[in-house]
Structure formats: structure tokens, C-alpha cells
């Protein structure tokens, strides 16, 4: 009952937000001086070209009309046609989405592993030197954004000690037998570990750059939450039963400490996905973000609109998923 209510409420809020995003993208591009056609025209285009282009992309209609046409198209799965490549925006965007999703999820996994490990070590060694060291590391990792970590890694592991690829998604020389664009996933399914390794070695640096700030947040929140839990009566009772400190941390404290961490990590994960835009650019990784920047530079309005909407859908979906996971993990809500 509660679960369904939560889902419905979130879906409603999601759609309002998405409509808001659509309105803003649509009008921002058009309200500002210099109409979109001028923005996308090559230098030296004549009156006739302008008129043709306007008709082609529907810019000859009034703004509300254009908006309605666009929204109707979106609802029918039609995001328009890209100006630079003259292909449907939908297929372009969906072609790049897997690359960005794989990068984000890889980064999330790394962040959870690093942050979780640091939190557990910090809790085990609380009050000691190890905890102090973890706190300092967290402070620095939190202060420096993904963009700078990426640059630092390029310098360290691309140039000074070149162990990872710092550019692209996969080595161009490799022959890819895949039918989907989820290369990382599909290479595993097809047991092509050579390709998988190549993909990982391309992805590792950008994913780590994205992961570090999130890892620091997880380490900090989870550690704090674990430490508070370790003082509670049930943790003490478990100790008197003969359990070791490690056991108490993992089995008694962790299940309770995860929940408060989870909600904040959800928001932070959307920040991480937002970070892919610049990180993909930095590492010439062929994902959505890189495509988005190209689209902006090339003034490809339909493509920009499509990508922004897609990002908004991803963000709101992530928030929804986090809320659902929270409800599922929380015994009070599950049985309420």
C-alpha cells in the first residue's frame, strides 16, 4: 500500500519536473537574442536558405505551436532530426546512452567499493591513526571535483606512468562483434575478455575520477552512521554474546547504517551522472555528454533538446529508484 502510494506520488512529481525541464530548454534556446536559425546557420547563408531551414524545422510557426509539436513528438518517441547528422535524435541518443550508463555504473560501483571499505576500516579503527588518515583523505577528495581528478589522472597514469588509456572508449583496432552498444556488458556475455579488459582499461580513469568525490561522501556518511550505531544497545548485546568487533560492525551495524547513507548517495549519484558530461569530454569517451558538447558547439538544437531531456529522465528515474530501494530496505515501510 505505502509502496504504491510512494511510486504514484513520485511519478506525478517526476512528470511535473520533466515538463518543467522541457519548457525551460525549449524557451531558453529561443528567448535569448539571436534566433535559433541564426545560431545554426553556416556563415554566408542567403534569405532563401533561412526560409527553407525554418520551414524544415518548423521554426516558421509560433513558439507555443512549436512547443506543442515538439512535446507531441516526444510523447510519440520522436525527438526530431539532428541538424548536423540528419538522423533521428532518438536513435543518435540511444546509441550513445549505453556508453554513458556503463561509465556511470562503473563509477558508482567503484565509489561504493572504495567508500564502503574506507568506512568499515575507519569504524574498525575508530579513534586511531587510520581513521584520522581516512578523514583527511576524505576532506581532500570531497573538495576537488571530478574534472580536476580526471586531469590529474591523465597526467599521472596517461603520461608519467602510462598504465591506462586516457582517450576513447575502446581501442579502434579491435574488431567489435556486438549487436548492442552495451559493450562492457556484452563482452562479458560473449566471454570476450580481451575486449572487456580493453574497455575497462579505457574506462578506469574516467570512472575513478567520477567515483572519488562520491566515494568520499559514502566513506564519511557511512562511517559516521556506523560509529553511531556501534554505541547502541543491540550492538553491545551482540558483543556480550561473544561476537567479534568485525562481526558486530558487519551484521549488526551495517544494515542499520546503510539506510541513512542511501538517500544522500542517491542525490550524489545524479551529480556523478551530470559529471560525465565534462569527464567524457576530457577523456574523449564517446558517450552522451561528449555528444552533447558537440551538439552545443555545432548549434544542433534538436539534438541538444533531446539530450537534456534524456538526462532529466535519467536523474528523476535514479531518484525514484533510490526512494523505492529505501522503502524496500526499510522494514518499517515494508510491513507498515
Amino acid at each position, binding site marked *: 500500500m505505502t509502496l504504491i502510494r510512494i511510486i504514484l506520488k513520485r511519478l506525478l512529481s517526476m512528470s511535473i519536473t520533466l515538463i*518543467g525541464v522541457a519548457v525551460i530548454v525549449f524557451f531558453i534556446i529561443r528567448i535569448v537574442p539571436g534566433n535559433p536559425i541564426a545560431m545554426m546557420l553556416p556563415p554566408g547563408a542567403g534569405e532563401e536558405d533561412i526560409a527553407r531551414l525554418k520551414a524544415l524545422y518548423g521554426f516558421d510557426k509560433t513558439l507555443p505551436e512549436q512547443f506543442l509539436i515538439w512535446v507531441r513528438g516526444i510523447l510519440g518517441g520522436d525527438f526530431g532530426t539532428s541538424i548536423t547528422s540528419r538522423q533521428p535524435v532518438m536513435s543518435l541518443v540511444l546509441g550513445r546512452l549505453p556508453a554513458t550508463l556503463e561509465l556511470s555504473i562503473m563509477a558508482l560501483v567503484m565509489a561504493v567499493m572504495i567508500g564502503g571499505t574506507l568506512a568499515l576500516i575507519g569504524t574498525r579503527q575508530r579513534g586511531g591513526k587510520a581513521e584520522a588518515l581516512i578523514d583527511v583523505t576524505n576532506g581532500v577528495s570531497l573538495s576537488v571535483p571530478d574534472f580536476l581528478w580526471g586531469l590529474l589522472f591523465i597526467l599521472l597514469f596517461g*603520461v608519467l606512468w602510462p598504465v591506462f588509456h586516457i582517450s576513447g572508449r575502446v581501442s579502434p583496432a579491435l574488431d567489435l562483434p556486438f549487436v548492442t552498444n552495451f559493450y562492457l556488458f556484452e563482452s562479458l556475455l560473449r566471454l570476450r575478455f580481451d575486449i572487456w579488459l580493453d574497455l575497462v582499461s579505457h574506462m578506469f580513469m574516467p570512472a575513478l575520477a567520477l567515483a572519488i568525490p562520491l566515494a568520499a561522501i559514502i566513506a564519511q556518511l557511512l562511517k559516521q552512521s556506523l560509529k553511531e550505531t556501534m554505541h547502541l544497545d543491540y550492538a553491545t548485546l551482540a558483543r556480550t554474546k561473544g561476537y567479534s568487533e568485525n562481526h558486530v560492525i558487519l551484521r549488526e551495524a551495517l544494515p542499520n547504517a546503510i539506510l541513512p547513507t542511501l538517500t544522500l548517495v542517491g542525490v550524489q549519484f545524479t551529480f556523478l551522472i551530470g559529471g560525465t558530461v565534462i569527464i567524457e569530454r576530457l577523456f574523449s569517451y564517446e558517450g552522451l555528454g561528449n555528444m552533447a558538447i558537440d551538439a552545443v558547439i555545432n548549434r544542433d538544437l534538436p539534438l541538444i533538446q533531446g539530450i*537534456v531531456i534524456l538526462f532529466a529522465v535519467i536523474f528523476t528515474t535514479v531518484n525514484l529508484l533510490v526512494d523505492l530501494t529505501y522503502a524496500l530496505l526499510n522494514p518499517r515501510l515494508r510491513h507498515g
Partner: protein
Amino acid sequence: MADGRAAAKRPINPRLWLSGGWLLILVVAALAAPLLAPQDPLAQDLFASRLPPMWQGGSEPGFPLGTDSLGRDVLSRVLYGARIALLVALVAGSCTCALGAVLGLIAGYYRGWADVVISRLIEIWMAFPPVLFAILLIAVMGTGLTSIIVAIVVIDWTRFARVIRAEAMTQGAMDYVASAKVAGRGRFGIMIREILPNVLPTIVVLLTLEMGIAVIVEAILSFVNLSISTDDPTWGSMIAEGRAAIHHSWWVLVVPLITLFLTVLSFSQLGEGLKDHFDPVLR
């Protein structure tokens, strides 16, 4: 009493000194850039391109940190870059702060429809990838310092609004607000005289953090080549050049990168240090 003594005894956090010190150096360097810079930051000299820094063989005097592929002096460009970075930090930071704090205060204290609208706006803004949003705004408004500042304000006001709204809500529920109401103060008066002073420490901390973020956003935008103009010495455009030339002249990347790193770290540590300073309970 005991609390007061503890606060007085507590030494000012070393990170406040370190980060404040670096930012002070930066401000001085930016102000005195014309005196300190050995070269014109825009002067190209193809015969002096890709000179290494002075501690490496093949360097030339007058170019202590080497030159980029167009023969421009790296040190001079970093110094002049500091002017742009700090200007953006200051102006964009304060404008963002002002807009976000006002909206946050209104939403958090007045509640009602204002809160509904502002909260919804915040939610919509959170659904935009911020970097892409900024790039889009610059593309629409055209390059230039003003565009950058406007873009930062437009994308980042929610950072303030969210926190200040929550704080104003907590403060608004406190007894002292109720007693001010009983004393006959108007709503606006209470917001300015009672709520604002109590959220001021938070605003100062957020402002400091925001300045660091503004520096980064400016760097990112000039990295993507949408900032002021390609010629102007910004740290971001230097980094973009350095990234392209990384395999033959690493210093073009390293020098602005380290400067940017330290600056962003300092703003953030200054903010965190101030937070601890204002809120001894957290320590």
C-alpha cells in the same frame, strides 16, 4: 561559560591558515600581475614555442615556467589567469549567493505558494546536468565574462536556496521567532532581523564554497572553449591547450592544473574550516 572557554582556547584550525594564505597569495598575484609577469601573456613567439621550465635543459631566461605551443609564457598566463578566475569567483559567487539566499529565505520562512513554486523550480533545476546547462547557456548568450557569470548564477542558485530554505524553516519554528511575533514585529522584519542573522554563518560558508565552484566552472567552460575567447589567458583554456599537447610539453598542463587544484582546495577547505569555526558542536 564552559563552552565559551573551550571556544576561546581552541586554536584556529590550521587549514584556515593554509587555505587563507594561498588565497591571499593568489589575490596579491592577481593584483600585481602586470608587475610580476615576465612577459605579455598574449605575446606569441613561434621561435620560442614549447620551451621547458627553467630547471630543465633547453630553457630560456625570461620564461621561468616554459612556454606553450604558440610560444606564450606560461607563468605570465597563469598570473593573468588568476585575475579572471578571482573576478569570476567574487562576482559570480556573490550574485549566486544573493539570488539563492533570497529565494531560500522566502521559501523557507514565508512558505505557502512561494515555497511551492521555488521548491518546484529547485527540483526542475536538479534534473539538469549542470555542466551541460552552463555550456548551453554560454552557447545561447555568446562567450564573454558576463555570460560566464550569468551562467554560473543561473545554474548554481539552487545550491544556496536548498540549504537556506531548510535552515530558515528550522529557525522559523524556534521560540524566539514566536516571541518576536508576539512583540508585534512584521513578517518581513522578522525575516531580516531575526532569521537572516541566524542563517548568516551558513551563507558565508556556502559563499566560500561557491567561489571555488565558480572557479572550476569557469575553467570547465574555457576548457570546452566557450569561455571568454581563446586568446585570453584563462586557466581553463591553458588546461585545454595542455591536454592537447600533453605528450610533448607537460608543463603547459601541470602549471595551471596545480594552481587550479590548490585554489579550489583552498576555497573548499576555507569553507569547511569556517563551518567548524561557526559550529563548535560539530568538532
